[in-house]
């Protein structure tokens, strides 16, 4: 009886450790996947930022679309009358 109890207890301990190790592996894999995805997101964001930066857009706007940076005298800051509170 004692032997059976011992075997069951030992099996329980081993099962618990094996499950723990398996979970640790899964957590590690997920963490690795998360950092991979974050790296990918950062890279894509950087590419978007570069593609929409002035150094890229300005030559395109000037050469292809024949646009120019507005002089300050061509910019009007519209003023809205105060709204009643």
């Amino acid at each position, binding site marked *: 009886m004692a032997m059976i109890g011992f075997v069951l207890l030992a099996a329980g301990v081993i099962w618990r450790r094996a499950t*723990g*190790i398996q979970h*640790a592996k899964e957590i590690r894999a997920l963490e*690795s996947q998360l950092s991979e995805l974050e790296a*990918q997101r950062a890279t894509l964001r950087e590419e978007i930022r570069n593609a929409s930066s*002035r150094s890229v857009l300005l030559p395109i706007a000037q050469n292809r679309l024949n646009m120019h940076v507005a002089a300050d*005298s061509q910019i009007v*800051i519209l*003023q809205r*009358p105060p709204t009643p509170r």
Partner: protein
Amino acid sequence: MNRPDRITLIHSSLIIFALALVGRAAQVQLWQRAAWMAKAERQHFTDAKMTATRGNIFDVSGVPLAQTSEFVRVSVAPREVKDRRQLARDLRRLGVDAPMIARATDTTRAWSTIPKHFLPNTVAAIAKTRGVYAEAFAQRDYTPRYATRRILGRVDARGQPLDGIELALDSVLRGRNGRAMMLRDPRSARPESPSDTAVVPRAGEDVVLTISQDLQEIAERALNDAVERGGASGGDILIMDPYSGEIRALASIRRDPRSSGSPLVSEPFEPGSTLKPFVAAALLARNRARADEVMELGDGTWEIEGRTVHDEHKAPRFSLADVIRYSSNVGIAKFAQRLSHAEQYQSLRDFGFGTSTGISLPAEASGLLRPPEKWSKQSSVSLAIGYEISVTALQLATAYAALANGGELLEPTLVKEIRGADGVARYRHERRVVRRVIDARVAATVRQMLIGAVEGGTADEAGLGNFQVAGKTGTAKRTINGRYRDSSYTPSFVGLFPADRPQYVILVKIDHPTVGSIFGGHTAAPVSKVVLEAAIAARDAALDRRALAAAAPPPPKPPKSGSTEVVKAPDTVAPRAVLAGGRIDTSASEGMVPYVASLPLPRVASPVAPGPPHAIPEVRGLALRDAVRELHRAGFRVQLAGFGDPLSTSPVAGAMAAPGSTVRLVSAP
């Protein structure tokens, strides 16, 4: 006595053996427990260092400027690869060039590392191929902007900071490494121990800079164009908020490839005429001169202590305001004689020259301002015109910020906020006043003089059409091997924009231009104009458009240089949008929205240039946008009252008004 029989002997042996076993077990489990546990731990577990992720660096609006990402390096053991053709195809798909693919599949080589880094998911499939080894590593990614990278600095392959913000704020950015217990298994895998007693790594803190990436890009592009156009050896642009001390842009370009770091804080230079306003401020603060006080200048040359001082703009007499407007060397040198050496030294010292500012950048220079006991007989004159003193661009901009904000010398900063990994702010910059240098009345008078320099003075080319700019040019001879040379100059311009409650102090410096003009008014001042125009047109350039809308437009330009007319500067100039303490008078801008419309107007210098009055067009019945456009096309400024369909204008349609005057457009609410 009976001899023990065989059975008894066997039983006794077994009992002794069992006792020995129990004894040994007790020895191992009880007395030697710790030693055996340690040995088992060494066999089953291994210690792993967990490197903390370095903190990110952001600009003022949250754009990442430096961040750490995980990448993968791929190596190939060609002899272990079974299908080399497939591997070559896979590598080609990853964008590896042909010579590298040939090396990676060359069986005469034992090992070949692809000199490229990949995103982990892109190499996940190829990493499973036999003979291909993928190694993850953290890489610091920086914004591709050259000038911004000079500020940020960099870290080496081991993650050690080398210069810039990375070095100055390393203790904040690097975090704390952790330690983990990993299990060893027969296949050399290293799963994490479930009964781990790891020290969790603490990620580095994020740093939010005061830099505006948009403005930085504008400055960098304008500077690059100016350096190219002028055949200069380099240049700098610094933009600062004069009320908070926050630096909005720091751009430096050097043709010398050995140059590194931030020359704006590490390379002092002789400022030349950009120092004159501080002499004027010292005179006004001590009541030794008035802005409208006239000084006789003779023929534009003055000999003193064996030295001859010349003027570029020669006139028989100038007021102090005109001395600044036309950058008269003779005038400022004569006025400076009213100050004692100690007073002249003390006033420059009070403006922060000769001491470092304490900015969070390594290798900040303190410049050079020698104490009066080390002066020669010519030093007073030299200092008045910006020689015998060296300043950093940051010191000069900070001193102009004091003129802009009403007389307070502020501590400049590049760091707006430091946030923990949990997003909670650990530090937030607060405006820090070093000292009050001059009172607000003196600062306002000097600002008025600087407006004069832009409107018809030496800084004429820095002027904008719709906004008033104040500023001062400088053109200083450079020294080569310890001697001043006529062939090498440092043209510069420091401006305040807008002149009324400035939001920017902008400093432009060009080093040793070799093509075109060498004067600051023709070389540096136009760069300031380009930067300001682009900043006004940009979506996010750290500008308060509400306050900008309330800023006064420039008056018609006075006669050009050469005039000897005395321009009277008022004793007290109170910008209408500024209240005591530097607060904005919001009543003037109540209800204004930061809305910018870029209108398809023809390329004209200024639609508000004075011209003959003409009739205000009828806009009733038009859509609001069309009505505004129609009024602008006619040359009027528009003030909106309501946002519905236009009902009327004030003055009414058909009334005659001068171009540039404001027409109130009344619309349905």
